[in-house]
């Protein structure tokens, strides 16, 4: 394989990114930052797919295509989420999740 970076490095990077995303999703208080954490999770998935495809199954392109679709769907998700966030800003005049809590147990 070309560059000589072992596949494990990519997988470690992806795992760290995934759990950083999960941590961010659970601890951040700003809606935009939460959305960024979700994107981090999806990007870690992309790295996983690309590394597996390039190193283990280079004769087939399934992983590459999957990550293209993940990128496209993530863009749709971000578009809808940001539209709703704008509406939340208009209604609540804040995008801090601690203030957006009309409903509770």
């Amino acid at each position, binding site marked *: 394989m070309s560059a000589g970076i072992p596949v494990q490095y990519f997988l470690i990077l*992806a795992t760290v990114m*995934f759990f950083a*995303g999960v941590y961010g*999703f659970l601890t951040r208080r700003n*809606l935009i930052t*939460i*959305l960024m954490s*979700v994107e981090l*999770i*999806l990007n*870690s*998935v992309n790295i*996983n*797919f690309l590394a*597996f495809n390039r190193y*283990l*199954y280079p004769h*087939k392109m*399934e*992983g590459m*295509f*999957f990550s293209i*679709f*993940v990128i496209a*769907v993530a863009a*749709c*998700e971000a578009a*809808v*989420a940001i*539209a*709703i*966030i704008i*509406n*939340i800003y208009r*209604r*609540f005049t804040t995008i801090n999740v601690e203030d*957006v*809590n*009309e*409903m509770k*147990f």
Partner: protein
Amino acid sequence: MSLENFLIMRQELLMVAVVLILLMAEIFISQENRKHISTFSVVLFSLVTIAGFFPSPSGSLFGGMYIASGTTTIMKNVLNIGILLVIIQSITWLRKIENSEKVSEYYILLISTAIGMNYMISAGHFLMFYIGIELATIPVAALAAFDRMKNKSAEAGIKLILSSAFSSGILLYGLSIIYGTTGTLYFSEVSKLFTSNSLQTLGFIFFFSGMAFKISIVPFHLWTADVYEGSPINITSYLSVISKGAAVFVLVIILFTVFTAIVKTWQSTIYVVSVLTMTVANLFAIRQQNLKRFLAFSSISQAGYILLGVIGGNELGMASIIYYILVYVFSNLGAFGVVTAISNQSGKENMDDYNGLYHTNPKLSLIMTLALFSLAGIPPVAGFFGKFFLFTAAAQKGFYLLVLIAVLNTIISLFYYLLVVKAMFINKSDSPIEKFRSDFPTRLALGICIAGLVITGFASVIFDAIRNLSFGI
């Protein structure tokens, strides 16, 4: 491949055509004809629903990415009936002045999610499955935030889109591990290459957690109650019946066809999760006052019962799940239909407001009672047979303790369903909801629900037909 092969995915193509027609109608229709868009959509979608019942060819398309069989067709038909009922129920709400500009938008988004669900059920490759599941959830988030002027609706929308994006991220991470260990994403090939090594099991656990978010099984159910309470009430019924039903169907198909090598693992996972779901959701449902929240927790506990059909991995289990979802469509949409009618009329959604409803609106109270009896599983209505088949399917494989827990939970659920019945029939109220006559679409939808409840309970033809098309591991 000739063009005739595309007839295999006739159902989806028809829905795409409906969406395109509605988009064109939105552009070209004149201002005074706009009020007919609802009727027009109902007619178009009922044509699609009827077309689904004609025998259709089975086979696969796009190199095995899309698979149609008798099982997927009957699952789609069950969902179509539910979507049609939701569309009819929402006409009254869409006639309100604040929604007059957004009527066709509503139908376009709703039918888009239906397309997503159909592709997800027919998937033969994880890519198709992923795109289907996203197409089925993203428009629902837009619909949950449909009441632009209400704080709660916006809050429900953001909670739904963020938790569904997070859950699909987890699901995708599981898929990437499965891809890394097997080198393929086709269902048929993954099932051959899947062994029970620990990395693949980890991938399966990630995948299952993602699906559990979508079905709102207990450790992953926290978004459900808030989203259900904040969304417009028709979207709540859509989420609790159709979205959940589609996700259950696809989970059953994938567990029965792909993860056959680790049956023991997913059986023990589902065992724990199912007990938790039934018990926790029932205990929370007892203390709810808002009826939408109440029905949200009741629908979470219903998901727990449905898992009893999954756990055995037998053909009776799949048949009973399809049958139960069919019954659940009628009973839950009946209950939601009554809540919708009353909410449209008076804006009241709390249990105390229902005190003395029987004296002012006897028909609505009777429909609500029948629907709740069916949800609880009391004999004369179809819900009893649904639960009976589910429990039989689990008992056939020897999960007696689980069935016992489920039966005990049914008793708990009977308590809180009867609380609503008691409020309507026995409790006195100084200011009951006034007597009113609902308009034609509401009455039509409720009539279909009641007819469905009675007919699916008594006509054994339906269960036999479903059973012939089901399969086990």
